[in-house]
């Protein structure tokens, strides 16, 4: 594991690696999102109960899943940072937190917009909704603590600790629909075995989901690059890079 990771512990290598993958991720996400959203919003069948308001689904579920996925990624990066003293993981945590916060906000917003036609109110204090809101607070906490320290290294370590401690919220969000009796939908998509939704609805969802996932990857890599530069600004390679770009 360590041997494999080692070259990427070098900021310069990682910087150039992420530089190289960004266009790929960007194109993938652009095309997948275009295809997926057009398919989902214009061509996929409307739900027999919910009508067209169902289409929020294609935004809501990817955003909600990714908000959790990003947190998990951030926590894993934090753990690596704590265990192996990787300076890069701090950059990863700092890069991921705002992206995750935005996706959490989107999940909340789309959920609220969907709730108005479905449940007659745009907010209930239900276990899933509340724990998703807590997720937003956790992201904001990580961001706030990252900003609170002048020293980037200290900020990174402090943020990692909070990111790790907050992981307990993830299972709560995930299983809230099973543990508590809630208004919110139970698992629909994930029950692939006995499809709870028709395949005509399912495939555009998959395309949208992947599109959003690559979008996250693109934005994260861009932010990751900046964070690496910020943390290594006194290094010769960064100075050279700056000189090159100035030309």
């Amino acid at each position: 594991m360590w041997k494999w990771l080692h070259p990427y512990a070098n900021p310069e290598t990682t910087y150039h690696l992420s530089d190289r993958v960004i266009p790929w991720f960007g194109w993938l996400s652009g095309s997948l999102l275009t295809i997926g959203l057009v398919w989902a919003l214009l061509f996929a069948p409307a739900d027999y109960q919910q009508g067209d308001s169902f289409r929020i689904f294609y935004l809501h579920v990817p955003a909600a899943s990714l908000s959790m996925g990003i947190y998990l990624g951030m926590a894993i990066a934090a753990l690596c940072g704590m265990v192996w003293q990787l300076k890069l993981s701090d950059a990863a945590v700092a890069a991921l937190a705002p992206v995750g916060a935005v996706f959490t906000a989107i999940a909340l917003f789309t959920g609220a917009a969907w709730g108005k036609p479905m449940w007659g109110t745009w907010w209930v204090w239900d276990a899933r909704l509340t724990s998703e809101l807590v997720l937003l607070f956790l992201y904001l906490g990580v961001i706030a603590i990252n900003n609170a320290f002048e020293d980037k290294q200290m900020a990174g370590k402090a943020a990692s600790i909070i990111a790790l401690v907050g992981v307990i919220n993830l299972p709560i969000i995930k299983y809230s629909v099973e543990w508590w009796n809630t208004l919110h939908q139970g698992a629909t998509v994930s029950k692939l075995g006995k499809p709870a939704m028709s395949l005509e609805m399912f495939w555009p969802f998959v395309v949208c989901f992947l599109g959003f996932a690559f979008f996250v990857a693109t934005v994260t890599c861009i932010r990751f690059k900046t964070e690496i530069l910020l943390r290594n600004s006194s290094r010769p390679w960064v100075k050279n890079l700056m000189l090159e770009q100035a030309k």
Partner: protein
Amino acid sequence: MEQGNVLSYFNLFKLVLSRDLKIALRHRDDVLNPLLFFIIIITLFPLGIGPEPQTLAKIAPGIIWVSALLATLLSLDRMFKSDYQDGALEQLLLSPYPSFIWVLAKVIAHWILTGIPLIITAPVLAGMLNLPTESFLATFWTLLLGTPVLSFIGAIGAALTVGLKKGGVLLSLIILPLYIPVLIFATSAIDAASYGLPYGGQLAIIGALLVGALTLTPFAITSALKVSTN
């Protein structure tokens, strides 16, 4: 020239615990203030909401626990801050013993000074909020198991923000989301008790949180302290 560890771990624990308690008792207000704060917040609600007994009884568990949470939160700041500001924290970090021992002592001192007074007064306040007597016992148990969890989790935030000028609000922001599970299970236990239902399940979960906090947080706290004094 070597000096050797003259203190056993247990003696170090006692030393730091008694020092922290002594400092707090010298200040005297330190012991009374979180308690008074707790009482004042609880009395604010009837003022803000109106005095109807049914409404009050219904929201009493929530109010008691939210107040306990806020009272703890406000007292967290002092756990490490004054030691940081006068350099005593550096000395503690440089003592030749594993840090988690004195960290544990400091957190437990905090709990003795804030948690225990809350536990003792809560039944009286519950009475003032018209909570049915059946749920007094549940209130007591949830506070007994829950307040140490608050101290332990809160210590992580206190440790992280110790070096910051204005850590107070940031601390709340980091810590309050983590307090939510305790809040939910505790109030649901009291609610259950007031309907005469069993509430052992909720207590068990809070107990589990306590065990988890006791074993895991001291290390998080120690590393947080090292980060923020770097």
